């Protein structure tokens, strides 16, 4: 019971804090916070692959970008489309892509998986670039934000705080569900994949099916983040589906730490804040990010969250030692 309170308390306080943010922050910062929430879902879904299953994907942006484009194109071409339908179409396209590509990659893991996901991402990018008439290519598409009608009520999402609340509530619930997912049967099965793919086969698990389900699930989640990305910026271009969009989520996730659920969220926060401030000071910001990344691969493979957990453990041990000393 005590363990449950210590888990739920921080979550609730963070949620309350986030709900109060529009009272404190100006629109500029609220926009950044909205972006952080969108990328938090993107990174959390990516970490299910990298941290939980031990699968390094270089193709996460194909789901993110595909859904971003489908949502945007649906809004532009389907007159009077509602926001929920637009999001649904985007997410559904990512789901379908997950089914098709996941089936093709079924037998591959490790380095093969990394290579093939990169190749598929490159394919999506190439198609998006060439198909200029639909995707707008480098120029991108301007996407108006459609109306949000829930049953018969029209919910306003035009202003920055309104869209912030919309994003926070929808994606916040989804992120909480993903957290819950990591504790469910399938979530635990994902860990078995990382720990010992060979052994799990002999206790009744199909590793191919496990990998396929996870790939579809994470792709669909990335798609949801992509749909919100288009709605948030009211714009989508081929950069949303580029390999860079995958490497960004890899950097965020790894820097934040893959060993904990909240690590990637921390990584997104740090990355976007740093990007916003450092990119004003220096053009060489990606270079510094790269150096930090390689430094972490070499010396702090657990990322920021791993580092924090280690420190916490050390402090706890010291306290224990101190207590024992007192008793003596």
């Amino acid at each position, binding site marked *: 019971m005590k363990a449950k309170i210590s888990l739920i308390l921080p979550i609730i306080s963070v949620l309350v804090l986030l709900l109060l943010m529009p009272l404190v922050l100006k629109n500029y910062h609220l926009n950044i916070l909205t972006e952080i929430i969108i990328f938090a879902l993107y990174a959390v879904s990516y970490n299910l692959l990298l941290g939980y299953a031990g699968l390094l994907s270089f193709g996460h942006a194909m789901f993110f970008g595909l859904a971003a484009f489908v949502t945007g194109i649906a809004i532009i071409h389907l007159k009077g489309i509602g926001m929920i339908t637009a999001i649904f179409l985007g997410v559904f396209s990512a789901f379908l892509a997950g089914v098709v590509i996941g089936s093709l990659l079924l037998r591959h893991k490790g380095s093969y998986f990394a*290579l093939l996901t990169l190749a598929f991402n490159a394919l999506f990018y190439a198609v998006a670039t060439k198909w200029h008439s639909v995707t707008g290519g480098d120029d991108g598409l301007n996407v108006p934000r459609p109306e949000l009608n829930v049953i018969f009520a029209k919910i306003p999402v035009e202003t920055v705080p309104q869209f912030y609340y919309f994003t926070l509530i929808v994606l916040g619930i989804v992120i909480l569900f993903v957290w819950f997912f990591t504790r469910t049967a399938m979530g635990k099965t994902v860990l078995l994949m990382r720990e010992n793919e060979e052994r799990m086969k002999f206790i009744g698990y199909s590793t191919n099916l496990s990998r396929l389900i996870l790939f579809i699930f994470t792709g669909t989640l990335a798609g949801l983040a992509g749909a919100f990305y288009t709605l948030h910026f009211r714009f989508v271009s081929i950069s949303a589906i580029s390999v860079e969009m995958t490497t960004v989520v*890899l950097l965020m996730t790894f820097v934040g730490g893959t060993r904990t659920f909240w690590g990637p969220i921390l990584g997104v926060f740090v990355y976007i804040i740093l990007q916003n401030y450092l990119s004003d000071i220096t053009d*060489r910001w990606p270079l510094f990010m790269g150096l930090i*990344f*390689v430094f972490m691969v070499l010396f702090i493979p657990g990322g920021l969250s791993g580092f924090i957990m280690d420190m916490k453990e050390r402090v706890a041990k010291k306290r224990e030692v101190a207590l024992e000393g007192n008793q003596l």
Partner: protein
Amino acid sequence: MSEFLVFFLHGLAYAGLLFLVSAGLTLVFGMMNVLNFAHAAMYMLGAYFSYTLMLHTQGQLWLSIIVCPIALFIIGALIERFLLRRVHAYGHVSELLLTFGLAYIITELVKWYWGNYPLALNIGGFLGETIQFLGLSYPVYRIFVFACGALVAIILAVILQKTRLGIIIRAAVNDNEMVDALGVNVPLVFMGVFAFGAALSGFAGVIAGPLLSTYPGMANDILVDAFVVIVVGGFGSLAGAVIASLIIGELQSFGALLFPKLSIALVYLLMVVVLILKPSGLFGEEQ
């Protein structure tokens, strides 16, 4: 007819480049089970080093061909010895992440030092001319690029088939444990092959510069094609790399002629078909 011949020759030239890049990639992958994302960055460094060298020596391509691969051999050896070997114990994900991070840093450094725009090089002398045959005039340089690829392929085949080193490398590709049994200094062989792969890739960069121009995106462009080559050819197979480079070089070239809209997708389409029909690649062994 002559148009077809021109595109066929174009395809050969690109195939030559692709082979030079994928040969090292597939050998390192086969031996060390490391997919080296920084491999194409070596190619890009080769091109940029050569650009600067040629700028200062009034276009001495021959000098670049000698100097740049040596420089990249050293860089490759250092990367293997001091970085890759260190993360080996953390598992293959860390190795991939490291090479990816290095590629990222090298690209950013290149943008910083040389700028984020294409640099063109003109080749003087005989290589810069065109030759007349079968009623068409064709640039000598493209033929030269293909010849380089073909020459390296032949040399590699001879080394792998006829020398003791080649036997060790082939054994390592098939079964890592077998090499231990042969009583070889495995870390040294790994470092050598990794550095040699980097040098080959750098050599490809040197000769690619005048053909495709030198720009910061060139690494990613060829990396994806080289990945497709090793998927199609079969992981770790040099013969596969030769055939797949030729197929993809020609597919790119004729794709641009016959289906300009679809040309990029054709290469991936080939990859998907191979993945469905023979997941281990044309020359790959089943598991």
